[in-house]
């Protein structure tokens, strides 16, 4: 395979593909621009509902590009103008995702304040504490010694990002700090993740080990921390080490404490000729059964996840599919899995930085290849064929909504390549 994976010249039937000035790749059979909300199949621009189905028996609450959280109902594509948020299942372990002062189980030196990011209220930490500290706790039953991630949104009154550079929580190198049931470990700076949402608003997550004092779970700012005022909104605590972009209600909030996974697939299309629904057999009719390629744009907002992250894949079940993943070693991998065995596995170099990444890949017997932004990838002349009889193109999670991406997918294009 030479240079760019998908080379011009493998274009399908004449007249199907529009001029190259359009937004999709000339070889694209299916193009899904999640960020832009534009969708194409077989050369026709179609509405989202004609190309994608979503099963998720719960609401989801995710931010748009302006940082305002949008509530999307059951079985609705989890998309804003940031892209598609492909989420797994998460349960918020505190009672309130956006408590008022009265709803916290313990407070000190805080006041109620106006909300932001689409919410009506927040809690203000004044930054100066002549007596005591600023404390906001929500009691919760965490298992001592287990790993949890706490996430909040903060609006910094001075407009500068919060910082977490000190290994000692109550140090001048930290704006504030978290405690998880009076955490037994010292939260060092590497455990904090700061994500800019918009304007003066940042999302801060911390992963650590729970202590044994359940009432001491939440946010602290002492007189030894930076004297910077901020407003706090939202509190999510999840088992494990991932702080997600969605805000999940608590057990005392409307909607329940569990966000179910988004099971997203392109299973149906529309026949260009008569608009009659057709099954995903269109995959074979489009000549994709023996070989196909792809171009994806994804946002990698964190590295070193404990589980692989599924981006897309076509097949019949979890043991028979061709899939693209971002693995625990921070490499994009193209895998051909047949009867439960990974017959072909190609990878890129390890991604070293976060940000948007474009991945181009080709699953073609005798000419496999993958590459991504900033990292070279493997090619392979293995003649292993692809699993046949694809029924589903999955997006953002494997069959059974397993190994979810838990992040933003911006674009997916499935490209025709000559078999």
């Amino acid at each position: 395979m030479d240079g760019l994976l998908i080379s011009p010249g493998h274009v399908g039937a004449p007249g199907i593909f529009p001029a190259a000035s359009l937004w999709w790749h000339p070889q694209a059979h299916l193009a899904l621009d999640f960020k832009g909300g534009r969708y194409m199949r077989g050369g026709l621009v179609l509405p989202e509902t004609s190309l994608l189905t979503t099963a998720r028996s719960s609401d989801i609450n995710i931010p748009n590009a302006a940082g305002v959280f949008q509530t999307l109902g059951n079985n609705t594509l989890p998309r804003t103008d940031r892209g598609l948020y492909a989420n797994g299942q998460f349960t918020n372990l505190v009672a309130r995702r956006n408590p008022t002062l009265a709803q916290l189980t313990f407070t000190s030196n805080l006041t109620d304040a106006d909300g932001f990011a689409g919410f009506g209220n927040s809690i203000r930490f004044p930054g100066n504490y002549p007596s005591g500290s600023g404390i906001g706790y929500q009691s919760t039953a965490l298992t001592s010694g287990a790993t949890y991630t706490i996430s909040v949104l903060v609006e910094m009154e001075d407009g500068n990002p919060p910082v977490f550079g000190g290994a000692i929580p109550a140090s001048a190198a930290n704006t504030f700090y978290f405690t998880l049931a009076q955490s037994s470990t010292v939260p060092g700076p590497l455990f904090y993740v700061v994500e800019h949402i918009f304007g003066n608003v940042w999302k801060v997550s911390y992963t650590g080990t729970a202590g044994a004092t359940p009432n001491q779970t939440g946010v602290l700012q002492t007189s030894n921390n930076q004297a910077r005022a901020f407003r706090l909104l939202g509190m999510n605590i999840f088992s494990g080490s991932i702080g997600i972009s969605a805000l999940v209600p608590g057990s005392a909030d409307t909607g329940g404490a569990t966000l179910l996974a988004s099971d997203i697939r392109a299973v149906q299309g529309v026949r260009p000729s008569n608009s009659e629904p057709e099954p995903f057999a269109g995959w074979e009719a489009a000549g994709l059964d023996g070989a196909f390629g792809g171009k994806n744009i994804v946002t990698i907002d964190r590295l070193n996840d404990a589980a692989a992250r599924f981006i897309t894949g076509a097949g019949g079940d979890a043991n028979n599919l061709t899939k693209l993943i971002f693995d625990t070693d921070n490499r994009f991998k193209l895998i051909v899995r047949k009867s439960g065995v990974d017959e072909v596995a190609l990878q890129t170099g390890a991604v070293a930085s976060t940000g948007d990444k474009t991945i181009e890949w080709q699953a073609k017997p005798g000419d496999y290849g993958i590459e991504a932004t900033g990292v070279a990838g493997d090619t392979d002349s293995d003649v292993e064929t692809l699993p046949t009889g694809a029924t589903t193109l999955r997006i953002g999670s494997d069959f059974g909504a397993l190994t979810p991406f838990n992040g933003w997918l911006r674009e997916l294009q499935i490209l025709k390549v000559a078999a």
Partner: protein
Amino acid sequence: MSEVYIYTLRAESEAALIALLEAAQAGKERPFVFDTEEGKTVDASRIVFPQPEMTLGEIDPETGEYLVEPEPTGFWLCEVRLPEPDAELEAITVPPQQEDEG
């Protein structure tokens, strides 16, 4: 937002809970339970993962401290959320845990 029908299942173990779901999925187009390399798992887009049932405990509203810590009851629970009613689940659902009015 469309209506959601919620069914709470309760059994003496996680395996027994999975068996209830497998029995209820017979003949349905979309399974509740999937086989994976690590064993069986539930459809995460419709079912809250099975978890041990806990007592509510009791929190002191003044301090936020637990007066009585939550404890496992020995049973397992999961919650199935569906866009339409399901007769098989209706037959085996249990009422949700009552809030302690204390």
